[in-house]
């Protein structure tokens, strides 16, 4: 096990370096001159521009810039944005919000997805199953932004049940609707995964054995079927955590949530390269670690899986 974790951590190093280099390249090398844009219409004083280029290492070759940034990263120094704010402060403001949002979404998709999926899987082909199968297909097919502003309009504006936008007050009440919208597509996937998995396990030999032993249906379903069916679902949920945080751009835009997605989107538009690079890097790290965690959870849930 320790060997396996060690090997996986070693494998992460090239992935991390490659991904950050790619991001750095996309943001810095492709984006043109960010300092020139700072000056606006009138342009910057050449001396000031030179000073700024020096400060942000923009006069260095691309690879040197990247290595300098990497060096800062090792000491948790994410640099300063072009507007002069430390990137660490920008991230400290945005990440807690998005983490809350992602957990609301994860909670929603896990609880409802597994519950509905379990019932559907047990009653495959019945009315409940067919209804939610269609619901899940529609949720997958309708883009999340359409679901987003339709819900915002119906639930938030017309019915007034939940606040339509989040803005400054981030709490569970304001994040509830955005969380559901963000988790809606994954809810459909969790539902379908659980359903298929449960239906498949219901005909498995170990379930027949458990029933033959005289266990109650309740115990067979919860202990034998559900636990085994959850293995692929847990994999999906873990991998989805990273996806939810990175994919929150659209949802955060619609509901005006001051999280990672919104900050990132504005940073991209304003060519705030230091902010973009560092934020995306953190997102990638979350994604990579979530995947490792999922693989380890796999072994914990399924004794048949052993890592050597």
């Amino acid at each position: 096990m320790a060997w396996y974790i060690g090997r996986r951590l070693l494998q992460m190093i090239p992935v991390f370096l490659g991904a950050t280099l790619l991001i750095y390249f996309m943001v810095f090398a492709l984006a043109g001159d960010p300092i020139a844009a700072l000056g606006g219409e009138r342009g910057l004083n050449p001396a000031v521009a030179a000073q700024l280029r020096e400060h942000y290492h923009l006069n260095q070759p691309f690879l040197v810039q990247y290595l300098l940034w990497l060096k800062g990263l090792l000491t948790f120094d994410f640099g300063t944005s072009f507007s002069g704010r430390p990137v660490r402060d920008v991230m400290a403001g945005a990440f807690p919000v998005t983490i809350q949002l992602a957990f609301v979404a994860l909670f929603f998709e896990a609880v409802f997805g597994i519950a509905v999926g379990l019932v559907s899987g047990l009653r495959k082909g019945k009315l409940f199953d067919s209804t939610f199968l269609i619901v899940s297909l529609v949720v997958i097919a309708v883009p999340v932004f359409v679901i987003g502003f339709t819900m915002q309009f119906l639930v938030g504006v017309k019915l007034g049940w939940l606040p339509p936008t989040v803005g400054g007050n981030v709490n569970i009440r304001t994040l509830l609707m955005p969380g559901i919208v963000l988790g809606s597509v994954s809810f459909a996937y969790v539902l379908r995964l659980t359903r298929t998995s449960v239906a498949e396990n219901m005909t498995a030999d170990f379930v027949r054995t458990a029933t033959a032993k005289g266990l109650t249906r309740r115990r067979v379903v919860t202990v034998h079927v559900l636990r085994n069916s959850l293995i692929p679902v847990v994999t999906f949920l873990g991998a989805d955590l990273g996806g939810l945080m990175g994919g929150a751009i659209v949802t955060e835009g619609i509901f005006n949530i001051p999280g990672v997605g919104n900050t990132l989107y504005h940073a991209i538009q304003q060519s705030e390269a230091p902010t973009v690079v560092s934020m995306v890097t953190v997102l990638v790290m979350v994604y990579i670690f979530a995947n490792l965690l999922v693989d380890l959870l796999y072994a914990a849930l399924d004794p048949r899986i052993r890592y050597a």
Partner: protein
Amino acid sequence: MPETSRPTQMHFFADLDVEILEQVDTVDETAPPASLWHDAWQSLRVRPIFWVSAFLILLVVVVAAVPRLFTSTDPSYCDLMSSYNPPGPGHPFGFDRQGCDIYARTIYGARASVTVGILTTIVVVVLGAVVGALAGFYGKWFDSLLSRITDIFFAIPLVLAAIVVMQVFATHRNVFTVVVVLGVFGWPQIARITRGAVMSVKNADFITAATALGVSRSRNLIRHVMPNAAAPIIVTATVSLGIFIVAEATLSFLGIGLPTTIVSWGADIAKAQTALRSQPSVLFYPAGALALTVLSFIMMGDAVRDALDPKARKR
């Protein structure tokens, strides 16, 4: 139970009917060979969901190819006088804020989505299948190298990467830049699936037999391994075609996908956001068309997956 004539010993014979055994052994030479694809087709052709999605896909492709067949109205002819006008003769869906005919825009919007979906899927399948097949077939250090490269692209969220790159392409955004961007960051999933499929096929007996017969490694990969690893690739590609259409719409919604000069569902949906309060139909038609298109590809992928999976077929 027939008894023997010998009086000293009692023998029991199993109830074997020689004639029936012969019948079982007979192979009907005229019957078509039961290949995976043949079986899959047999189970597909009786499923209504397959025919419904096939019909919808065909319809959307025809609409995208020759929109003139379905409307004679110019989608870019807009008269502010008819802003938000209700449906009338010749204009079944009514008008949007700018006074453009919603029906015509919905029909003409198909082209952008379908083109992006199909082209991106082609790019992704070619890139992903080549990388995945090489990694899975040749293995060892080559696999490690290609797998790490796949991981790198997999770790960067698709929409996020697309936003960063599309921001750079600000001046020349068109269908092809969207395809390139989505393709470059969309291939890792196919690569992983191909790698897995190739690895599970390459140790099969018929591959060993082909190698023993002197088939070269590259020919073995192309002629024998790939056709047998194609099923999961096709299923994933069909479903991801729908996903790419949604991704394009998301980019257009954010204002960094297709320019407004191209009629597209994504851009129309984005415009409809402000109009939702006064006229929901402005949102309903482009969003509905988009959803129906995506839905038909996902249903098709589901149906093909079920048909190709012998475990699911028995039930």
